């Protein structure tokens, strides 16, 4: 699952999450006033966006976004 949603009511378009995401998952929309999830599968559930968001608009889950083989 990784990043699950960005609350567009709360989002102020400050770009903190876009700037901090190590995997380029989040971008600003065309108008440049709201963050949106673009590359969901690259999310590594690191929680940086949720932690750094100044208005608590982001919700992340710890579930893996891609299938990764288990050893057994």
């Amino acid at each position: 699952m990784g990043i699950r949603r960005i609350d567009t009511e709360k989002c102020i378009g400050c770009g903190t999450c876009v700037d901090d995401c190590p995997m380029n998952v989040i971008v600003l929309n065309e108008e440049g006033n709201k963050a949106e999830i673009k590359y969901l599968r690259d999310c590594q559930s690191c929680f940086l966006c949720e932690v750094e968001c100044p208005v608590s608009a982001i919700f992340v889950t710890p579930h893996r976004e891609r299938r990764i083989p288990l050893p057994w």
Partner: protein
Amino acid sequence: MKNSEEGHGTADVLIVGGGLAGAFAAIKAKAGGAKNVVLVDRAKVGKSGCSAFAAGVIAVFFPEEDDLEEWYKITVELGDYLNDQDWVLYHLNETHKHIKDMEKWGVAFEKTKEGRFERRLMRCASDKVPTIKQIMFHGPQMMDVLRKKVLELGVTIMDRVRITDLLTDNDRVVGAVGFNTVTGEFVSFKARATVIASGGTAYKSLFASHKMLSGDGHAMIWRAGGDLMHYERGAHHATCAWYDLLGMNIFVSFGAKFVNSAGEEFVGDYDPIYQDHTQTYMYAGAMAMEVRAGRGPIFFDMTHFSEEEVRKLRTVIPLSVSKMERGGIIVGDKFVKKMEWVPTNFGNIGSGGGAKIDLDCKTSLESLYAAGDAACGIGAGTYGFPLIAIPWAITSGARAGEMAAKAAAETGDVRVNKNQENDFHGSYMAARKTKGGVDPEHAILSVQEVIIRPDVYIISREETIKAALAAIEEIRRDQIPNLYSLDVQSYNLVLDACNMALCAEMWLRSLLTRKESRAGVMREDYPYRDNVNWLKWIIVNKAGDEKIKIRLEDVPLHKFRMQPTKDKQLHRIFEAAKRRGVQWG
């Protein structure tokens, strides 16, 4: 960055990778007098690689409290005598000075009421051997401070620039090329000295927040003809089967327990001295043996932690605690259930192979330095030493920056070969235009399916290594040249797949070469640690025909103080498995 007349970005010292090692390299390159220091990162300096997610603890030797001889002895013994012992001593003597600097810059550490560093027993320390101790920092705050410090000193930071290849003039590295990971723009740097601090490869495996570590630095050094060493060492770790979590070391230092499916604590049977604080490869081996005996799955139990301990964890490892709250593992200030725990192929993060370096962090190529996981690990040979990655990133990063600044000052203007630069540019543009072919996601999964197998990366034997090698060769032949990318984001995956497959082949070829069991190399066809024949370093580089070439060097023990006994001993994991009634061989 200054733009020269030829249109290159130029730097006195170019540093690739903005984690702890790269940040320290930048700070020390500035302190060493380099004027134009450029630090680039494929993500964002301070929010990238392992360091932003490092799990809150650093093993530090303090001369006023600790016994240097004891720390030195344990480090060399745990390294099974493959260390560069000169590096071990240098490292132990330097780390604490840098920690004190970090504190002055504003990095927060847990302190006692008396104002001393709060210390706990590390992994590879127990009541029986209470030597190695850790200190605690506040998760991502550390790298936020380092980024600020780097900017304050006037270092030029370029975020979202992924370096792909080194520019060379004969044996000298004169810069690097890459691209902007958002705009796709091709970039080229001319540099008097270059430091690679872009980490190792974690194979996008089971472990949290390490998905950008795909061996870029190792791959570019290999392609430029440089030496890599210790590549046979797969770094072992373990993590939650359900979620990507960090922090096993700190959880263990707080008293977390491993239990098998019968609820029995078993790690102490495999390692009676360090018990649950044992090395990472011993956990991995013990788990694999328990599962082989039908006693899996394995669980990690923290349900006995006090509320105060959970609150402390929330301070030092906030991201993992958030995840466990979200996953319903922590409710309020209590752990309410055990988690299924599995070993993970951690590639060479923290204690694996990397660029062969000398005491100055210089690689086998002129003007090229390496630090952190991009280099071959502390003291070149410490398998599974507890939490060595963070202090090693600090000491090697600082040394690489200092020596690169010195080299830059001694080097006149360097010349970029336009033909080589144009070739890199041409290949990049061609690769970006690819239509049709193989999905890079498929290639990444194919590599993982080969290497995340317990009979390959934990307890291996010649047949399983050879089968894995054949599968990787097939991926490199049939899939890698035919990968397609839809946009610059998926081109990142193309490069990830390409570099991961190369690193996997270097690892398997090195593993096949080491015909013994030493620390993290556990081969059931050669179950003895063989000090008669195998006190050797395994070095990988590129033969002229693009093939992976292996050579051996004797460990230069004649230079070092601690000497091993020249005997053969059954590896601890096989001896313990016998005691536990697990079949092997």
